[in-house]
Structures are given as structure tokens and as C-alpha cells.
């Protein structure tokens, strides 16, 4: 089963595993409310959106690119669901997903057609998408069909839709990345673009795929949140961009591409959600959360990137 680079990539997830266990133990020890089904179900609910965004971001990072537009796509999706779920019902979901994919493809096109730096292309796309979102939904509002809420978050148990969806998405992509030629090509491209190209991997195809997937999952995450809060919010996704990159790096994904495993990303996402949960359970000032997140991010970067060449 475990052989070659796949084995190595799974080993890269160990720090995230240790961190997750540590956080769970500490929070569990400090708060009696931690190991209750309500809290665990709450964790799973929070895990779903961040988990999905981080999943998409990690796919882009595997290819050695970065997508800074996921947060905006996330926000846009909440707005679209909030504005259309009344008329379209369930169809609002596929429509939103398609729009998310389109945003991703836009990134890929800019990078390959105009050879714009992926980083900057992400910033530009983020700005455009944010503008469009604010045009269609200037302030939080709209309404989401309650049926959708019932279907997704109706159960207050741990073993329910949010957890199944997260696990399902990760399982599918772990298999694709680890056991298919397609996944191998993405790792190869991220590992060394020139070498992959010489061996017949097309940059266009890789970019369309990873940015498309990233847009898809950012939209999916936005849909989940809009259903959860039963409305849309044009700025709610902003914080998710950095959280997603943060989770990926904490999970052992190399920023320069070619290395890392989605298993690590899932573990890192869980640990980020645990940090958040600890802040709530232990009644800490939530304003400190941003600072904590920034510091975790820097520490993760320092820990995983030490000794490697800095700027691309």
C-alpha cells in the first residue's frame, strides 16, 4: 500500500498528527465540555468549511502554485446561495459550484494566457470577485431555504452530514492524489515544472485542474456556511484564505510544491478548529484569535521551511 513518494508524503503529516492530539488532550483536560457530543458535533460543523477550503488550497499548493482568491470565492458563494435558494431550491447548489469552478478557471487562464504571477493573479481575482459579491449583496442578508439547513445540519450528532462530507471529500482526493497518474502529474509539476513539462505534463491542464478544484471546494465551503447561517455575507470568507494556506503548511504541504499529503491537511485543519474551540470553551478574548492565528502561521512557516531557499 505505502510505497515510494506516497509513503514519504504520509510521513510528512506526523507533526500535524502530534499537534492535533496535543491540542485535543490539552483542551479536553482544561474543559469538561470538550468531550461532549454537542461540542464534537459543533467541531465537525466548523471543520466542514475550513476543511473544504484547505483541501482546494492544498491541491493548488501541490502543483507549486497558490490561490489567494479562495476567500472571495467563498463569500461570493454565500451570497449566491442566499439570493437564489428561494427560487432555485436545491439547484442553487450546483449553480454555485459551477460559478466557483469558473472563478478557478479564470485564475488558471490569467496565469497561462498572460503569464501573470499566480500570487498576484489570485489577488486580482479576489478583488474582482469581492466587487461582484458586494454588487449583488452589499451587506449580510438574503435568505436560505430552511430545507437545506435541515438536510445538512439537522442532526446534532457527531456522525452526521458535515463529518461525512468532509471525510468523503478528503478520501476521494487522497485516492486521486496518491493512486492515479493524474495525481502523480500534479505532484511532478509542483516538484519541478520544467522536468514535468519535458516529460509531457502540460501547465495549462494542471492549472485548470487544480484551480478548478480549488474554486469548486471554496464554493462548496461557502454553500455550507450560508446554509449554516441561513443567509449570505459578502465578507465572511476573507479570513479563510490565510487559514487555508496556514492549514496546508501546518499539514506538511511544501509551499514550493511537490510535497505533502491531504491527510496532513485534514489533521492541521482539525487542529486549527480545535484552537478556535479552545478559545470559546476557555472563554478567552476572541480578539486574540487573529494574533494567535498569525503566530501559528509564522511558526508553521519557520518550522517547515527552515533551511530552504526563501523566495521563489
Amino acid at each position, binding site marked *: 500500500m505505502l*510505497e*515510494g*513518494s*506516497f509513503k*514519504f508524503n504520509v510521513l510528512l503529516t506526523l507533526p500535524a498528527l502530534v499537534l492535533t492530539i496535543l491540542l485535543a488532550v490539552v483542551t479536553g483536560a482544561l474543559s469538561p465540555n470538550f468531550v461532549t457530543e454537542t461540542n464534537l458535533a459543533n467541531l465537525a460543523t466548523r471543520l466542514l468549511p475550513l476543511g473544504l477550503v484547505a483541501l482546494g488550497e492544498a491541491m493548488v499548493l501541490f502543483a507549486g502554485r497558490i490561490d489567494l482568491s479562495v476567500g472571495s470565492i467563498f463569500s461570493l458563494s454565500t451570497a449566491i446561495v442566499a439570493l437564489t435558494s428561494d427560487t432555485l431550491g436545491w439547484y442553487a447548489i450546483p449553480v454555485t459550484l459551477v460559478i466557483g469552478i469558473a472563478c478557478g478557471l479564470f485564475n488558471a487562464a490569467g496565469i497561462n494566457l498572460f503569464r501573470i504571477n499566480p500570487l498576484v493573479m489570485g489577488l486580482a481575482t479576489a478583488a474582482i470577485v469581492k466587487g461582484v459579491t458586494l454588487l449583488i449583496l452589499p451587506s449580510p442578508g438574503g435568505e436560505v431555504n430552511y430545507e437545506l439547513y435541515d438536510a445538512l445540519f439537522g442532526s446534532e450528532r457527531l456522525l452526521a452530514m458535515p463529518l461525512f462530507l468532509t471525510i468523503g471529500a478528503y478520501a476521494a482526493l487522497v*485516492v486521486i492524489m*496518491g*493512486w*492515479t*497518474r493524474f495525481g*502523480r*502529474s500534479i*505532484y*511532478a509539476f*509542483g*516538484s*519541478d515544472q*520544467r*522536468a*514535468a513539462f*519535458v*516529460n*509531457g*505534463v502540460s501547465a495549462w491542464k494542471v492549472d485548470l485542474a487544480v484551480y478548478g478544484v480549488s474554486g469548486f471546494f471554496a464554493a462548496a465551503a461557502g454553500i455550507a456556511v450560508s446554509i449554516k447561517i441561513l443567509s449570505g455575507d459578502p465578507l465572511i470568507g476573507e479570513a479563510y484564505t490565510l487559514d487555508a494556506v496556514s492549514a496546508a503548511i501546518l499539514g506538511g504541504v*511544501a509551499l514550493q510544491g*511537490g*510535497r505533502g499529503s491531504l491527510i496532513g491537511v485534514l489533521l492541521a485543519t482539525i487542529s486549527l478548529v480545535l484552537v478556535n474551540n479552545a478559545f470559546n470553551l476557555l472563554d478567552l478574548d476572541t480578539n486574540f484569535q487573529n494574533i494567535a492565528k498569525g503566530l501559528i502561521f509564522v511558526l508553521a512557516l519557520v518550522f517547515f521551511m527552515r533551511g530552504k531557499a526563501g523566495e521563489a
Partner: protein
Amino acid sequence: MNAQAPQTPLMTVAGISKAFGRNTVLKNVSFSLAAGEVLALVGENGAGKSTLMNILSGNLSYDGGEIELEAEPYRPAGPAEAVRRGIAIAHQETAIMPDLTVAENIYFRREPRNRFGFLRQRRMHGDAAALLAELGFAIDPHRFGRTLSAAERQMVEISRALVQAPRILVLDEPTASLSAHAADTVLQLMKTLKARGTSVIFISHRLSEVMDAADRVVVLKDGEMTLEATRGTFDRDDLIQAMVGRKLSNIFPTRPDLDASDVMLSIEKAHNSALPPISLTVRRGEILGIAGLEGQGQKPLAEALCGARPFAGGTVRLDGEPVRLNSTAAAIAAGIASIPDDRKHEGLALGLSIRINMSLFAISDASRFGLPLAREREFGEVARKRFSIRSTDLEQPVGELSGGNQQKVVFARWLARRPKLLVLHEPTKGIDVQSKSEIYHLVNELTQQGVSVILISSDLLELIGLSDRILTLYENKVTGQIERADFSEEKIMRLSAGIVAEQLEREGAEHA
């Protein structure tokens, strides 16, 4: 086995040409290749060999002429089509993915899959182990690409090309980084393939290999074909004549005999993490050549001398004074100038003007705060004439110049420091013969003014033509020293291949 002359050749190349902008790199090249034939493609750097190879492998298109493969026109739209038509290539600049294992690299995009389309990782690593063993390459298929040495990367590259079961295998300088033993393995492999009916096109600098293995040879010079001959109808001198196009004595300056003058640089047991203790001396006005296969310690030595990766211990004396080369600034202050091998990444800011690239030292030596602009301009004009740099004016971005002129800009920058020691690392890589000759004469002139030179090069003609003495490196250690009177390609090759001097003498004695 040379007698079989098939009626229709496997491939015919008829009068193809290729230009980049106004720069023609291939002119009217024609040859043919039979099934089971080994063709050697020979020429200096920049003669058009890689262009031709990139055309065959589908990385480049060609402008004029026609290539036919098995009597069908051959104009591949990309590497994938070349592979489909049965042409596989092992590049000298290997395309190994650092984060994939050896097996994953060899079978990349050809991985064995089960009936659901999923990769069979274990089976693939097993297959790779068997393949590598069959080819005689001792590499563990589980190792990662990033851990491979230059020689091992080359072997993986060749293995990957073979997995494609090609009709024509193109090998780009397959032995440039290989030790003698591994190079023999590759030559043997070519013979095996030939016996199986696979054609091989190989590019090589080593004339002995060409004489040994090639059924047919094509020599390129400045993009034109200067010789096409079959086995037995050419000798070594024909090859050199066709490659260089003029007598070597016209390219290289005549080196004066060194009087037993004083020592300029002496290194005693200096070492760092990349380099075991090394000792060497260079006399005033001497050119010390450093020969070796690719990646045998040349880069660490050059980096240590320029202070980029300093020596951790040992003593270095320059012009009698002990010096500590702890940083690039310290090495420069001590009087060392280093011309790096990769001028585009390590030497020049391609987007900036000739003036800015050239005057870096001239201005910092003339001023502490403000820029002496008038002086900079004057320096630039003088240097442009002295080094005969061909450009529209001083403000032209360096990136627009030819390789030779770019290199002259690097020289102009460093020589403004009036260095005592000049460390040249592949100083003429990828530049035209005219500029080469100019650089050789320039270096020769400098030594007559008392500058000492360390010339690290993979170009044997250059080493022999310019050096007063040659040291060979193998696995980061000095394996031998050859005096000018004893220079020969053969001798350098043997020492570079890790056959130490005593062994060489013993073999010599046996022959006698």
C-alpha cells in the same frame, strides 16, 4: 554488423534549418539513420547540436527542410508525439522530478495500473529494480530524485528513455557526468540496443567514444554540417578539424614559459562541509586548469574561493598574506575575482543596462555615498572598447546581448577591481568561437601582468590550450596533476575518471 545496409533508412533528415529571430542556429543539415545504426553527433558548445536534438524530440519545430521517419513526414507537435513515433530522448540537462522516487521518475506517465486505473506502486518499484539491474545501474529505486548525484540522474534519465521502447534513442552527452566504469556501461548498452535493432543518436565531446562506438558521425559547426562520414572513413583529426574549423593555434594564445616565479595562491588542507581537505598552489601569472567530470567538486571549490561557501578550516595565503575568505566581500577585498559558471543566474542582472552591470566595482571603489555618474559613463565607454562588446550603446539591457558579449560584461565588471587571482568557472560555456578566442587572449594578457588564474572547465580543448598545469578532481578530491609537456586528452580523462596516477603509471608500464 556494419555490412547490413538497409534499402530505406529509418530516418532521413533533409536540409533542415532553424532560426531564432534573426539568429540562424541550424543551416541545411542533412543525414540519414538506418535501423540499428549508432550515429554520433559532434560539435562544440553552441554548434547547434542541442537545437537539432530538441527538434527530434519535439520540443522545437523546424523552419525549412524535411524530416522523414519510416518514410512518413515527421514534424512532431510536442514531446508526446515524438514518443508516439518512437523517438525517446535522454537529456543531458536531466528532467528528474526531485520529489518523486527513482522508480516513479522512470515510469512517469507510464506507471503500471490495476484494472481500476489505480497505480501499482509496489509492482512499479519492483520493475524498476529489475530494469536498473539489467542495465547495470546500481541505484535503489526507492531513492528520491533530489538525492541523486549528477551521474545517477543521468542513469535514471537513460532508463526512462528505454522504458518507452523507442525505435530511435537519442542520448545527449550521456557520459559527460559518468565515471569511467559507468561510461563503459552506457557504451555497452548502446551496443546491446544496436544488436536489438534500435538506432541510437548520441552526442558526445569525447572523441575516443565517438571513434569507438559510432557507425556514422555528423559534425556541426556554427549550425552547419561540416562532416558526415561512416565508420572507417574518418579519423580523430578530421573530427577536430570539422568541429573547430580552424587550427587550434589561431584560437588559443601562445603561452609563454613561466619562469620559476613566486607563489600567488597557496591553499593548505582547506575544507568545508562540501569539500574534503584540499591543497593546491598557483604561481604568479600561472593558469591552473581544473579538470573533472561534472559535479566532482568544481562548484564547491569555486564557491569556497569566492567566499560564497567559505572554507571552514585550513590555511589560504594570497600573495604571501594569510587571508580568510569568510564572505564574498572578504574574498573580493583580498583580491579575488570570480566569474561564475552560470552567468545568467549568478553573474548578470539581465534586465538592467550594460552600464549598471559593468560598473558595479568601478563606482564603489570611486565613491562611498553618491554615484560618480560621469566617471561611470567614462569607465563604461572605455571598457566597451577594450573588451570589444558589441551593443547599440551602454544603456542596452544586458539580456539582449549574445552570450559572448554578456560574458565580456562580467569580465569588465570584475577586472575593474584589478584582481590578483581570477577564478574562472566554465568561462566560455555556450559562447561563439570568436568571443571565446577574445576571452582566451584577454586572460593570457592578464597573466602577463602578473594575475594568476584558476580555470575550472569541462572543455578539454580549452584546458589544454590555455593552462600551464592541470589538476584533476574526482569525488571532490584532487586525483592528479599534469604538467604542460604531458597534456593529453587521454590522460586528463583517465585521471578525471577516478583512476589515480599510480595506477596509470602501472598500466603504462604493463603496456611497455
